[in-house]
C-alpha cells in the first residue's frame, strides 16, 4: 500500500533494529540525506546497510556508522579520503564489511527485485573477491556465482512522485534508486515535488508506483550544491 506522509520522521518510523536498509545515491547525487538523518534520530540499530560507499565526512551514513548503528556494510567503495568514521570502526573491528564490485552490487540488487535466485558473472573471477564462491567456466570464460541482495527497507531520493507513487529522477541522481526500490520490501522515497496523478508522461516513468510504499516531500534546499562536490574517490593514477 502507498502512503504519503508529512515528515521524514514519520516516513522512517517503522524501521526496526536488525533491518537491512538500502540507501540510494552515488556521491551526493541521489543521497536521501533527510531520510538518513531521520533514521539516525529514530534510533534503529544493528542495521545492515547497502550503499555504494560507507559514508563521507560528518553527515548522513557516516554519522549512522559513527553512532554504532551499523553492524555491517555492503558496498563497493568504503575507503575515501573523508570516510574516517567507517575507517575507525573497521580498524577497531566494530563493523563488518562485505566488499562487492559495483556492477555485482547493482546486478545483485536488481536480481532481488526481479526474483532471480542467483547468477553467474565474469566480474571478479580469479580475484580475491571471488574466494570461497562457486565458479564455473561458461563459453570459455570463468564466472562467479552471485546471489541477490534483498532488503527490508530502501531509502531513496527522486525528483517527482505522482499520486500513484510513480517516480522520475534527475540526471545522475537516478543511480541506485530504481533497483533499490524494487529490491526492498518497503521503499521510502523523498521527492522534491509531488505532482497530480496523470502529470507524469507514462512513457517517462522510471520507477512505477508498484515499487513505492511511502512518499515524503522534502523541498530541495536552495544552493546546497556548495561543498557537495568534493571529489573524494581515489583510485590509482
Amino acid at each position, binding site marked *: 500500500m502507498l502512503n504519503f506522509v508529512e515528515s521524514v520522521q514519520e516516513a522512517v518510523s517503522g524501521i526496526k533494529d536488525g533491518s537491512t536498509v538500502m540507501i540510494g545515491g*552515488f*556521491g*551526493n*547525487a*541521489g543521497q536521501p540525506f533527510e531520510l538518513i538523518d531521520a533514521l539516525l534520530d529514530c534510533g534503529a540499530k544493528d542495521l545492515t546497510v547497502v550503499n555504494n560507499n560507507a559514508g563521507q565526512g560528518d553527515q548522513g551514513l557516516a554519522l549512522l556508522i559513527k553512532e554504532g548503528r551499523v553492524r555491517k556494510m555492503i558496498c*563497493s*567503495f*568504503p*575507503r*575515501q579520503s573523508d570516510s574516517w568514521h*567507517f*575507517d575507525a570502526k*573497521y*580498524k577497531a573491528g566494530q563493523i563488518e*564489511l562485505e*566488499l*562487492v*564490485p*559495483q*556492477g*555485482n*552490487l*547493482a*546486478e545483485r*540488487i*536488481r536480481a532481488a527485485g526481479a526474483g532471480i535466485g542467483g547468477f553467474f*558473472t*565474469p*566480474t*571478479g*573471477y*580469479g*580475484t*580475491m*573477491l571471488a574466494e570461497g564462491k562457486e565458479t564455473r567456466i561458461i563459453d570459455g570464460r*570463468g564466472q562467479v556465482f552471485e546471489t541477490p541482495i534483498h532488503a527490508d527497507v530502501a531509502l531513496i531520493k527522486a525528483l517527482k512522485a505522482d499520486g500513484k507513487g510513480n517516480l522520475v*529522477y*534527475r*540526471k*545522475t*541522481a*537516478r*543511480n*541506485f*534508486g*530504481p*533497483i533499490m526500490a524494487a529490491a526492498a520490501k518497503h521503499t521510502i522515497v523523498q521527492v522534491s515535488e509531488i505532482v497530480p496523478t496523470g502529470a507524469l508522461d507514462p512513457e517517462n516513468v*522510471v520507477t512505477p508506483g508498484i515499487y513505492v510504499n511511502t512518499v515524503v516531500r522534502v523541498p530541495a534546499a536552495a544552493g*546546497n*550544491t556548495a561543498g*557537495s*562536490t*568534493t*571529489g*573524494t*574517490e*581515489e*583510485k*590509482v*593514477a
Partner: protein
Amino acid sequence: MGVMESSIKTSEAPLSRDDLARLVARDIAPGSFVNLGIGQPTLVSNYLTEDQDITLHTENGMLGMGPEAKGDEIDEDLINAGKIPVTELPGASYFHHADSFAMMRGGHLDICVLGAFQVSVTGDLANWHTGAPGAIPAVGGAMDLATGAKDVFVMMTLLTREGASKIVESCTYPLTGVGCVTRVYTDKAVFLTGPGGITVRETFGCTLEELQELVPVPLKAAAAA
C-alpha cells in the same frame, strides 16, 4: 632474455602525462564508446577531437558526458564516477546503475582506460588494492570495467617510485581481472598484450634494448600494424 631489435617507432624523450594522454586519445577509433577511469585516464578527454565523435560513459549512469563543469554549470545531480561535476552533451542519456553496469559487463563499451599498479605478461591487471595489512579494500567499478570492455587500455608510469617495473611476469598485488588488458601506455613505451605474450609497439626516449633492461620479462617488437 634476448631482445629482437626492429624498426619500431621511438621518440627523443619519455612522454609527459599529457603527451601520453594525447597518444591514447589519438588511438581511439572514431565513433567509439569509451569509459575513462578516475585519475590519469581522465586526462585523455582533453585530447579527444570533435571529429572523433567519441561518446563517454560514466558508470554512475550516463552516456554522452561532457567536460568538467565550471562555475554556474555545476549541478550536484550531474557528476562522474570520480564525483566531479561534469556537463551533458547533446545526445546524452541517463540510466540506472544496473542498466549502466549491464552496458559495461555486456561488452558494449569499445574501450576503457584504467590506471594500474601492475600488468602481467598475460594481461592480468592489478589496480584496486595493495593488499597491505590494515589497508581497507575498495573496488568500485574497476573489476566490471576490466572484465567487460572490449579493449582495456592501461595508462601508467612504467616504473614505481622505487624504480621497479609495473610490467611483471605475474602480479604480486591482488588482481582486478585475469587476462583482460590489451594495451599498456607508459611514459617509456606502449606495450600490446595478447595470446603471443607482451610486445612493444613503440618506445619513448629509449631503445628496445634499454627498455628491456628495465622490464623483467622478455620483450620483442610488435609486428608492424
